[in-house]
């Protein structure tokens, strides 16, 4: 028998792992501080403030996630004690057989069965998602931006939204960046709503540019500048989330949602999966994505109108 293939009792064999988490755990970073433990997430803080999040398999992964079976997640959770200065050592995790999750943006040109659709069709898809999202009447965070009565935070975001909309419609990255700076660390939540909103905006931008086959290097530079700002202005968890945007590696459910929308495969299931991210983050991410897709598609409509016959 090959003992390397056997899961030993007390050891954890992740089901899948994000590329950044894999890199961190295999390059020799064995010790981490226990940052926080929630019902469905354990955040471990490595050097350079990199967080790796362990989650049970029913949750979608990001590039810094380790996905475990329910049993392994509970084993890990019970082995971790949270107290000031608590440390965690990776040794019980066996990564040899773990699937590395590829979250890179696909090449749409080579995407199987993918057809580029008229802008109006995509706008219809955004509209359907907006209606479905609106029917949930989410009043917290920045979700009311898309409709409904505002709150303290949407009022504070109002001016930035105007600037963002205009910049998205003209695709001015400097303006987009300046507007998004105004959302960093804004609002309630462990990842403040503004940060989740930025994450959704960047995901939509990255996927839309990929869909349009545009060079994303300048977008990466913008995302990097946002991450640098986030390092000073928001929580460690948010900073990690925004830093992961630079490489265009978004959460699995965010990726699936963007691809489905751009393929006009409307399904509430894609939306529901995004809404399951965090406790309320999913709603703010969805708000950012729908706001951005809508604005970008408005611009496309204008361009189409301008186009001579």
């Amino acid at each position, binding site marked *: *028998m090959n*003992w390397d293939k056997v899961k*030993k*009792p*007390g*050891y954890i064999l992740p089901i899948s792992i994000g590329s950044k988490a894999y890199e961190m755990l295999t390059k020799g970073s064995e010790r981490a501080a226990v*940052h*926080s*433990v*929630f*019902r469905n997430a354990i*955040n471990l803080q490595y050097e350079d403030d990199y967080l790796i999040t362990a989650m049970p398999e029913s949750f979608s992964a990001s590039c810094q996630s380790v996905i475990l079976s329910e049993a392994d997640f509970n084993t890990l*959770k019970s082995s971790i*004690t*949270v*107290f*000031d*200065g*608590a*440390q965690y050592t990776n*040794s*019980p995790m066996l990564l040899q057989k773990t699937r590395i999750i590829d979250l890179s943006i696909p090449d749409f040109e080579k995407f199987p069965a993918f057809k580029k659709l008229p802008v109006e069709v995509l706008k219809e898809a955004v509209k359907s998602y907006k209606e479905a999202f609106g029917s949930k009447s989410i009043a*917290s*965070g920045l979700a009311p931006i898309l409709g409904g009565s505002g709150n*303290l*935070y949407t009022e*504070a975001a109002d001016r930035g939204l105007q600037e963002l909309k205009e910049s998205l419609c003209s695709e001015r990255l400097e303006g987009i960046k300046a507007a998004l700076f*105004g*959302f*960093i*660390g*804004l*609002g*309630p*939540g*462990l990842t*403040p709503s*503004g940060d989740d909103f930025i994450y959704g905006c960047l995901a939509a931008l990255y996927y839309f540019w990929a869909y349009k086959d545009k060079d994303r290097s300048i977008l990466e530079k913008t995302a990097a500048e946002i991450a640098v700002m986030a390092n000073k*202005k*928001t*929580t*460690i*968890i948010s900073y990690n989330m925004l830093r992961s945007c630079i490489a265009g590696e978004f959460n699995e459910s965010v990726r699936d949602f963007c691809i489905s929308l751009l393929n006009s495969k409307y399904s509430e299931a894609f939306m529901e999966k995004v809404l399951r991210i*965090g*406790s*309320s*983050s999913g709603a703010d991410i969805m708000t950012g994505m729908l706001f951005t897709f809508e604005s970008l598609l408005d611009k496309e409509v204008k361009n189409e109108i301008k186009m001579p016959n």
Partner: protein
Amino acid sequence: MKSKCLIKKNSYYDSVTLMIITKEVESVQGVENAVVVMGTEHNKELLNNVGLLNDETSAASPNDLIIAVKLEDDSIFDSIVQKVDELLNKKRSEAGEDYYPPTLDSAVKHLPESNLVIISLPGQYAAAEAKKALLNDKHVLLFSDNVTIDQEKELKTIAVERGLLMMGPDCGTACINNVPLAFANVVKKGCIGIVGASGTGTQEIMVQIDKFGGGISQAIGTGGRDLKAEIGGLMMIQGIEALAADEETKVIVLVSKPPALEVAEKVLKVLKSTGKKAVVDFIGGDDKLVLDYGFIPAATLEEAAYKAVELCSKSVDEVLGLEVPEFTKATAEVEKAVKAEASKLAKGQKYLIGLYSGGTLCDEALKLFTKEMGDIYSNIPLKPELRLPENAEIYKNTAIDLGDDEYTVGRPHPMIDSYTRQQMILKLEKEQEAAILLLDVVLGYGSNEDPAGTLVEQIKSVKASFDARGQHLCVVAGICGTKGDPQDYSEQVRKLEAEGVVVLPSNAQAVRFAIKVLREVL
């Protein structure tokens, strides 16, 4: 309107919890507005816009939680703080979630009526948390090792001053008011109280008491160093006093490696003062001293259990005269099994190899074997010259404690993870002079969920290798467990017997059986 705020440094709560807090605080009469946010710059700007920024909130970092409130009368702020603390510490199961208090302080607030804290942390942090628990007037079971002896002395001194139990460091077993803690077996409730400086020693006594029809009132662990001169038996004495005050406890059992003489005398004096009957198993220690104090000495863990059960209904003198049966099964049946195993051994097979997960069980095997057969090598030898030679994992007659530090660096204890023992069993294939493989199989809470199941494949493999070259490997296992244990005792026995393992109900019986087989061939 006044503004007040509460800052929780480096506090991480999910958004649902924070929303609940916002709502609850806003519902307090006299509160006009409440904002619960992380202390980011933008949130501070927002607080400024609504008149809630002050010096305290200005100083918060992005990783601090701010609870800012605008209220009519600041005298209600204390009750708001209390409400927030209650909400943060309250059991989330009410909202469909389990609650894991993030710190000892929050655990104490969450469950103020609790009176015992179990601590299992890396050694360098463990002592500080244990001290915190003791200062909160909680008893402590400290599972962690790597606590210095000075720290242990300090912790135990605090415990004695406050009338608390400080079980550990390195305390693996206890059973308080019939609640098993750490590694412990499911045993009947009864009148026998144990104070043990040995984890598997205490487990084996508990299990055997259960098998002999007795029951446990309390089992108090002290940690292995308690009877060293530096600690002076502080917790064994505290444990004895606790059992003296416990009305359920009629008979006391002490178990420990042989203590320093002055410590032994101190402990026995306190035991005498309780007026309760007692069995003392200072494993391999001075029987005369125990007898001088009017207590019953025991040569094995099983004997300690047997005599303790008898003491519940008999006098000390009556029990002193009792002989413990060598085997639970009928002598003829045992002899038949011995002969059957011995007859299969080939010429030249003459050594016993013990691979133990329990340190005290290994120590007991060494003592019983030495008494009957002579020298046996080990990583925890009875004499320095019997330490296993360097680079030799096995040497002549050998018994290894696989729970010792050298085998557990970077991996769980062998009672949880059988990997090291599996590898060692497979390596026996080349030991042509080995006749007997002796094992312990420890059941109960904390142990592997299927300890026998994790070993049978390797046993089968190594037995097949012996068979293939015309030899036989006699495998003998002592089970430390009860029918109430979560692993299913009968199923564990069945799995072992299916692979030809001779299963005995105690470690002492397993060792005796192995010795009998060896005697047949030597």
